């Protein structure tokens, strides 16, 4: 028997594969992980505290910076919470614009995940292919909102801008293009034996464990539970579109991969229907009081972000500023299961597991 010594290894906060400033203190025996302890908070900016001194409109730019890969859904969840409290009616056209931008954002977010995950696994090219498509989405969103990453597009009661001329046509043209590229992704990665060996059976958990750990999004659906708030608790106008909840039944990184790739397809389906049904004319801003003051009380709403269930809790005193604002940040909840998954794995799997959870540190740290 060889005498081995355990050592403590700091993965991060500056590590190429932790997707931000995330630190993981692992105890390893050789390359085998015995214990893992995530350390977060390096990107904590106190959004919730800041928000207590801001009017609702002023908070929207801050939400952009939580999950900076899918800022549209963050914009939406805040507006949705306030609108639910105030029982506002949103104009049809604004709802469609919201859906279209959110689904575009979802595709963009999944593309970034796809690219960076493959980068974690050592393949450099998928990253650049994914960013080729993402760049097109970003350009579309830039055109409509004026921002490439932090859109600040939605407002309580509607959206800031109407779609510019020809924008809907551009989205329309993008859909078949994206489908074609997805097939290419399949050729490049999905069938690749090395890749399959890296992800199959890695980071596996059961449905019960997933529920226990409050996982959501693809992390939950990969265990076979068909749970997507867009379908299960339809908000906005998602009930008008036909699409499927993507699931896999393996509960491992491969399942999560499949779910996310399928979700891109389903988002394209929603987009297709949305641009088809897009109303010709109409307002993009509903009738909203000049100063937004939700009535006294509290509300918690949750919607489906690319990373899972994003929620927003507002306690209002009937003032311009929220008394308490709290975001349920899916990455934060999803990351909790990591130590459990890591024990007994080796270094290479660490990256594969962490990557498959799909965290955004801006969101984890809030």
């Amino acid at each position: 028997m060889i005498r081995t010594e355990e050592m403590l290894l700091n993965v991060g906060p500056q590590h190429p594969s932790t997707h931000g400033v995330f630190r993981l203190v692992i105890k390893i025996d050789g390359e085998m992980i015995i214990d893992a302890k995530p350390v977060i908070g390096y990107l904590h900016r106190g959004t919730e505290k800041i928000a207590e001194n801001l009017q609702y409109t002023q908070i929207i730019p801050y939400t952009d910076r939580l999950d900076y890969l899918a800022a549209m859904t963050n914009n939406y969840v805040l507006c949705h919470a306030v609108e639910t409290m105030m029982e506002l009616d949103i104009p049809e056209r604004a709802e469609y614009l919201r859906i279209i931008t959110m689904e575009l954002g979802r595709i963009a977010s999944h593309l970034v995940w796809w690219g960076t995950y493959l980068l974690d696994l050592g393949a450099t090219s998928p990253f650049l292919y994914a960013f080729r498509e993402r760049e097109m989405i970003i350009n579309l969103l830039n055109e409509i909102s004026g921002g490439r990453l932090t859109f600040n597009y939605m407002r309580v009661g509607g959206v800031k801008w109407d779609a510019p001329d020809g924008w809907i046509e551009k989205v329309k043209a993008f859909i078949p293009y994206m489908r074609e590229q997805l097939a290419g992704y399949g050729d490049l990665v999905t069938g690749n034996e090395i890749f399959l060996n890296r992800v199959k059976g890695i980071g596996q958990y059961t449905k019960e464990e997933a529920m226990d750990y409050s996982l959501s999004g693809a992390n939950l659906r990969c265990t076979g539970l068909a749970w997507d708030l867009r379908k299960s608790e339809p908000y906005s106008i998602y009930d008008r579109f036909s699409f499927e909840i993507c699931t896999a039944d393996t509960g491992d990184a491969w399942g999560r991969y499949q779910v996310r790739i399928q979700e891109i397809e389903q988002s394209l389906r929603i987009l297709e229907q949305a641009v088809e049904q897009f109303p010709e004319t109409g307002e993009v801003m509903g009738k909203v009081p000049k100063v937004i003051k939700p009535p006294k009380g509290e509300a918690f709403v949750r919607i489906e972000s690319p990373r899972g269930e994003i929620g927003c809790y507002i306690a209002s005193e009937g003032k311009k500023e929220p008394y308490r604002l709290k975001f349920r940040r899916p990455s934060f909840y999803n990351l909790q299961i990591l130590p459990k998954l890591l024990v007994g794995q080796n270094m290479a799997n660490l990256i594969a597991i962490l990557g498959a959870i799909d965290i955004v540190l801006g969101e984890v740290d809030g």
Partner: protein
Amino acid sequence: MIEGLLTSEATWLHFFIYFALTVLLLFIVLGFVTYAILAERKVMGFMQLRHGPNQVGGRWGLLQTVADVLKLLIKEDAIPRAADKPLFILAPLIAFTPAFMVLAIIPFTDRFQFADIGVGLLYYIAVSGITTVGVVTAGWASNNKYALMGAMRAAAQMISYEIPLVMSVIGVILLTGSMNLNDIVLAQENGWYILWQPIAFIVFFIAAVAELNRVPFDLAEAESELVAGYFVEYTGFRWAFFMLAEYVYMFAMSALITVVFLGGWLPLPYLGFIPGAVWFALKFMVVIFLLIWFRVTFPRIRADQLMEFGWKVLLPVAIANIFLTALLKEWINLF
């Protein structure tokens, strides 16, 4: 001609001629490394819908690597305080020197070869193994956990893949009856060994990629896992030495593959008017391109899978190939 110098009278003149030729080779190799890096970046760029380097040295970025090397040379030489200093300094040299030593036995053309020794193939494999020592030394001396893990991975990988590498060429040696690289090339006049020994070629190529620590076998420096693996603490010209060693090995290994399986400088039928050096260069470049292409396409294999693949797949296949070749040879000899 060069070979003659080795056996000639030991005079200063001969020594200087030989020395000058060696320096010439050194510069050729350095030139190769410079442009191999550029080519790799360019090809990768093109495959990834980018342009690659195009700022320094015109549209094709011809001076990009030169600029990079200059930058590396004038960079601060940082040695971690807790590092084992003598070993830390020594490690790049240990890793780098064998890379040049193996070049001596490679017959680039029928005349341009520095040492035509009888056991050329064996020499190559034996000497190239020394580099692992340098890598492990670097990993150990850095006093960094990532570096240590990278070094251990490199050592394990090198040992595992050296064996199929050797085993696979035994088929070729059986057919040739010699370990001399010149003989091996000449034996391919009626057909390259890639045709006679396809299994050996595949095994050898895979093992060679692993030996070179290139994607999909780049575990030792796995950027996304171990940050940079064994040379994570190295900067400046010491780091450049590791890089140089890596690319010189790429040069040497591609040359070896060309010699052993692709017929070295031998021309294709009816195209004998093209000089051997050109043929060699062409075949050589195909191999290099293949390596780069792999790098663009594949994800990294996992450490345990790498071991499994080496011992459970490549080695049995290589051994089976030996038997097959032996049978084949006997069968041919019967008639």
